[in-house]
């Protein structure tokens, strides 16, 4: 049960942290259409968070709700990928990150549709429709900006170079992943690497971007062992209402 809970937290926290980061663009995106697109993407991700963390809370059986898990845990209890918690920086990095994540989510959620756990199947099937749509947009935007002006190309290359050392964490199998694979709830994340790499290579090529050669990978986010300094700052904003007014409802 502990492993299933951890597994569900990872899915939910990925969606929550990326959803929150994406929502930071609300009202300040470079164009109205992009503002609307980013906030709608954030909304999908927060919806997926409710499904994953809702199930995590049930599995834990400690009387906590999805809201409790989102708003009343501290940074070291979060299980999201480090890549998703680093600051947005600029529109280019935001979309590059979305693309690197979407390119993983689509094969990952596709595989989870065959999970031995029926609830996981249901959440994955629902989320996959949204992830597929997100991937269409993020891949298209990465190509448009990479193969755009000299300035937009340089920014996208800088975004890719910055995010690349964080991407390897997507595929770092651990004890929880092996426990999930043993009971056929989820495949090993490392198995997603060929599909992800193929999609990333194709898109980078079309976007006139050069994939970094180093395979150094930061880790510690999905295990909770070592988050970046940025997560605490993000949570301070995201959780301020429940921290200041515990139990507040509307």
């Amino acid at each position, binding site marked *: 049960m502990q492993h299933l809970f951890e597994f569900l937290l990872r899915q939910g926290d990925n969606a929550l942290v990326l959803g929150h980061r994406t929502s930071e663009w609300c009202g300040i995106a470079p164009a109205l*259409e992009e503002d609307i697109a980013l906030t709608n993407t954030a909304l*999908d991700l927060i919806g997926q968070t409710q*499904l994953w963390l809702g199930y995590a809370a049930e599995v834990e059986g400690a009387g906590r709700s999805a809201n409790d898990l989102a708003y009343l845990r501290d940074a070291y209890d979060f299980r999201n990928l480090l890549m998703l918690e680093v600051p947005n920086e600029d529109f280019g990095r935001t979309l590059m990150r979305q693309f690197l994540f979407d390119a993983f989510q689509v094969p990952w959620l596709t595989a989870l549709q065959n999970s031995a756990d029926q609830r996981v199947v249901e959440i994955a099937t629902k989320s996959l429709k949204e992830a597929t749509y997100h991937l269409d947009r993020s891949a298209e935007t990465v190509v448009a900006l990479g193969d755009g002006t000299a300035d937009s190309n340089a920014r996208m290359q800088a975004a890719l170079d910055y995010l690349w050392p964080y991407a390897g964490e997507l595929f770092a199998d651990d004890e929880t992943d092996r426990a999930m694979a043993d009971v056929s709830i989820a495949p090993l994340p490392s198995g997603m690497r060929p599909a992800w790499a193929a999609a990333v290579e194709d898109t980078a090529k079309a976007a006139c971007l050069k994939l970094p050669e180093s395979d150094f990978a930061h880790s510690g986010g999905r295990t909770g062992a070592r988050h970046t300094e940025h997560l605490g700052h993000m949570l301070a904003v995201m959780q301020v209402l429940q921290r200041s007014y515990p139990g507040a409802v509307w």
Partner: protein
Amino acid sequence: MAVMTITEAQVWTWLEDVPDPEIPVISIVDLGVVRGVDVAGDQVKVTITPTYSGCPAMAIIAMDIETALAKQGVTDLQLETKIAPAWTTDWLSDKGRARLEGYGIAPPQTAGGPARCPRCQSDAVEKISQFGSTPCKAQWRCQSCLEPFDYFKCI
């Protein structure tokens, strides 16, 4: 006073009158959000499904169902939300599709884009953005009459 007997067909008819809170020209039945109605004596169970997992209209839809059925004398209502099978635009009724178009929202097409401008019927249309005013819509523009319009995403 005669004891009222509620039938499932009746409940479906009542729900046909509950508009979608964000696109009020179509009902939640036409949208495919209502997945089931079960009546056992006085107890009515209505099963609904979200269009998108983060659809903010779900809470309003639940409240509107409660209100509409309470008006008809339903006091014992059980509302259940389920996500499987996942909602698809295939569940939009033909009536719903026609009403969307009449309202200025191009109905979903499996080809992935609107068949024509809902205002002037021109098929010269272009995408502005993959997302629109709600999670279920995208923004397109007509190259003939130059008007922007919403397109109901096909999923």
